[in-house]
């Protein structure tokens, strides 16, 4: 080293103290998130203990709503159905999701990379549209159902039974189990499996004795989440179950709210509170399991070479089996929608090309369809921007500050994931009702629906954001603080630029989720504030299947474009962040 003069010397001005203290900002972000997420539950719970709806003057404390629900045999019947439905769905989705994860992560399955990404599609595509597609092809009056019965005298699995519905639900929710298991397998050191093979175990034995036991926490974790999601699912029970007189808790609440001759909101609130209790209990259980999962994380496994278990003769049969899942989960419903949208009626009795028409598509250009598309576009765009901003700030406060209550934020942000959409809808209905002029304005406009959608889907933004945030080493922040940057300057100049890919993906995911969501809105829509989801639901029930299919195709197309763009710009693997949900 050359002996230069003892430079740099000469004291320079110290950094100035920031004008605005970060503390106040942390409080503001925390309060905003907590009030948005937990706020709606206060009036919901309150209304369930009143003897008349909140919009009527007077009223007193009573347990009558709960007595009413618990004394209703229809409620218990629906509860029993729901339990069976959720149990079937959970078993199917978890077992097959885990198998797909093992095949993709640990074997030499042909096309495993492509499968790894495509398997996510059933979860990302618009739920309501996919259900409609299934019904049109495979439902009781579906095209393929009828065709097979006429020509081959084959009886297909009836979808309008509890088991049939749970198969559809399981196809949709399988990716949840897949993602959780995939994340667990990516974390686990594959040399554990290599060691078993060196010890003389065959591939199947390795999977049975090493891989599956390692996955146990992931299996339990995804099972509780899938169970909770199935418990509160509205679309499938409403479109498939209700016509066949099978009631679930969600449809029981929905039908009592919309169709009953004497609407009795306090008792629906009471039912919603009971469902919320169950969902919350499942969330608490899951947090316990997640704690247990830490113990199973093998040390030093990161970046380890993923060794492959050879499938041998089973390579191609298993690849075909996974393809079949994609055919059932994606190709059939999307084809069904596409076909339904361009014919006047889809029936096995007549060949579709004799019934071709563009009228379903031209109908979208006017009236309520046009309004719904416009409304959906606006709230998806604005909602995705707002949610991404709020979640980015909240994630910064939660993981990059010394704010006293920061540790509560992740729980609050993940809570809506375990909360049934219909309960969020009812909650916001009451919340808008009791908050005066601002509430009235939200209630009468599309923004009220947007807020409910944003809160409901906010966990996705956080789940995408968090892993990236966790990978940004804390010493990078500390280095910035030590050279004189304030909390806000550090966030702006260091953390946010490094977070940019996650921010973009979170925006795309929020855009898709808000565009395709429907169930929180069913309690909030008014004439003129319909969004695509609610329009599809009401039009389908009135029998306008062709237009509904065209509308669903719009959702499918937009979803596909957004996914393609974001996976091209950033690795789609980042969507795997959803796994930790």
């Amino acid at each position, binding site marked *: *080293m050359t*002996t*230069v003069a*003892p*430079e*740099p*010397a*000469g*004291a*320079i*001005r*110290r*950094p*100035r*103290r920031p004008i605005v203290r970060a503390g106040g900002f942390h409080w503001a972000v925390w309060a905003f998130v907590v009030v948005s997420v937990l706020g709606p539950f206060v009036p919901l719970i309150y209304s369930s203990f009143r003897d008349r709806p909140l919009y009527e003057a007077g009223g007193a404390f009573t347990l009558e709503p709960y007595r009413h629900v618990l004394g209703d045999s229809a409620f218990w019947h629906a509860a029993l159905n729901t339990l069976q439905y959720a149990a079937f769905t959970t078993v199917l989705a978890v077992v097959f999701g885990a198998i797909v994860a093992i095949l993709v992560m640990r074997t030499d399955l042909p096309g495993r990379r492509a499968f790894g990404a495509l398997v996510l599609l059933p979860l990302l595509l618009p739920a309501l549209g996919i259900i409609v597609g299934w019904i049109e092809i495979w439902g009781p009056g579906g095209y393929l159902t009828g065709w097979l019965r006429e020509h081959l005298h084959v009886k297909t699995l009836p979808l309008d039974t509890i088991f049939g519905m749970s198969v559809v639900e399981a196809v949709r929710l399988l990716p949840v189990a897949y993602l959780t298991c995939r994340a667990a397998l990516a974390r686990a050191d594959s040399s554990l499996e290599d060691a078993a093979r060196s010890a003389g175990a065959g591939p199947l034995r390795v999977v049975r004795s090493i891989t599956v036991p390692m996955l146990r926490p992931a299996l339990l974790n995804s099972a509780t989440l899938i169970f909770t999601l199935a418990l509160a699912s509205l679309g499938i029970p409403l479109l498939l179950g209700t016509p066949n007189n099978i009631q679930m808790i969600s449809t029981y609440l929905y039908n009592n709210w919309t169709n009953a001759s004497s609407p009795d909101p306090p008792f629906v609130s009471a039912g919603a509170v009971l469902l919320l209790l169950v969902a919350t209990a499942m969330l608490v259980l899951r947090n316990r399991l997640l704690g247990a999962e830490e113990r199973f994380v093998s040390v030093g496994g990161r970046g380890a070479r993923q060794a492959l278990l050879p499938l041998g003769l089973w390579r191609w049969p298993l690849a075909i089996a996974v393809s079949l899942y994609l055919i059932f989960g994606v190709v059939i419903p999307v084809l069904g929608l596409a076909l339904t949208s361009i014919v006047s009626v889809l029936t096995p009795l007549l060949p579709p090309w004799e019934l071709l028409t563009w009228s379903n598509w031209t109908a979208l250009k006017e009236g309520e369809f046009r309004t719904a598309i416009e409304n959906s576009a606006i709230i998806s765009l604005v909602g995705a921007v707002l949610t991404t901003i709020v979640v980015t700030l909240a994630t910064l406060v939660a993981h990059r500050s010394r704010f006293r209550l920061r540790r509560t934020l992740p729980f609050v942000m993940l809570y809506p994931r375990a909360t049934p959409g219909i309960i969020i809808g009812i909650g916001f209905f009451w919340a808008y009702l009791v908050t005066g002029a601002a509430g009235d304005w939200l209630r009468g406009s599309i923004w009220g629906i947007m807020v409910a959608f944003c809160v409901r889907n906010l966990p996705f933004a956080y789940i995408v954001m968090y892993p990236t945030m966790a990978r940004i*080493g804390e*010493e*990078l922040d*500390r*280095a*910035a*603080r*030590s*050279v*004189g*940057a*304030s909390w806000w*300057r550090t966030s702006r*100049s*260091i953390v946010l*630029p*490094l977070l940019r890919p996650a921010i973009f993906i979170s925006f795309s995911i929020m855009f898709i989720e808000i565009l395709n969501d429907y169930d929180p809105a069913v309690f909030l829509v008014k004439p003129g504030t319909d969004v695509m989801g609610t329009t599809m639901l009401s039009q389908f029930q009135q029998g306008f299947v062709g237009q509904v299919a065209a509308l669903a195709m719009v959702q499918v197309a937009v979803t596909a474009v957004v996914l393609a763009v974001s996976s091209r710009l950033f690795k789609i693997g980042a969507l795997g962040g959803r796994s930790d949900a």
Partner: protein
Amino acid sequence: MPEIHVEGLVKQFDENTALDDVSFKVPDGKLFTLLGPSGCGKSTTLLSIAGFHTPERGRIAAGDDVFYDSARGINVAAEQRNLGIVFQSYAVWPHMTVYENLAFPLKIRRLKRKEIRERITRTLELVEMGDYARRYPHQLSGGQQQRVALARALVYSPSMLLLDEPFSNLDAKLRERARSWVKELQHTLGLTTIFVTHDQDEALSMSDSIAVMDRGVVQQIGVPEEIYRHPANRFVAEFVGRVNLIEGIVSSVDGTSVLVDIGGAGLKVDTVPSTTPTTSTPVTVAVRPEAVTVAPNGARPNGPNAFEARVHAVSFLGDHYEYELELGRLTLAAQSRARVPGATVEVRIPPEACSLVS
């Protein structure tokens, strides 16, 4: 450059006491090292000085500049302390070029563009990275990133420099070079520096003085030679280099030296703590293996503390031989440059190399 005063730091993590009454003073322009095993509280101390941990009690000041004082309720934010820190991971911001990394602290201090450029050029030359200003961190090796991290910590003329295990991610060869280089740079700039490490070689070779820490308590503070040759206690003796610990009972005290009975034989010890032990108390004697001399049997070494020992094992370590000896019931490690033949040897333990430790 100011003196750094750390007084009576106490910090709890949950139930565990991370820092227990940690106090030391770093004189102007000196390099002070916090040495200890992981979890001893050295990094917690450093991060408390930097402002990333808040202790429960104590006082931290640089000259008249009080950073933290629990009694007066002072706790200056990390970004207001104006000190430079180099982290174990270097923490060079990956989305900024080397130049931008160095410009960031200067922009915060609202320097003029010209002055920013001058300072960066000067500092990069100082760390011999002048040609790398436009590179991104991922285009640099570990050693280069470390230089950038150091340059970034120096570019705004901080009042002190903190180094948190900066060499632990370098490979052995590079580490030695970086060590002497950093020491030289620190000396040239005359920057008061606190250095955290778990590596005793690093601590001994670089420091003006060392504080050895264990379980949140400062065990001994002293210059490297003192720490090595006269460890205050068992922990320091064992942590800083290899040591023979010999248990015995004081048989007589004579001014500044004591005679310790080690199972029949007498061992003369010259280095005694200020509170001289009384006769017939049990004590531990520490002596470094390289201080023990080994000679062929019958060579009849002169002076006290000469014993006959049986050779249990010998290993060759390149520049010396390592002996494992049996001295009655005792086992004793010794080093010798030459191979001493025979199953029994003569050993001598110089009294001045022996210390009584608590």
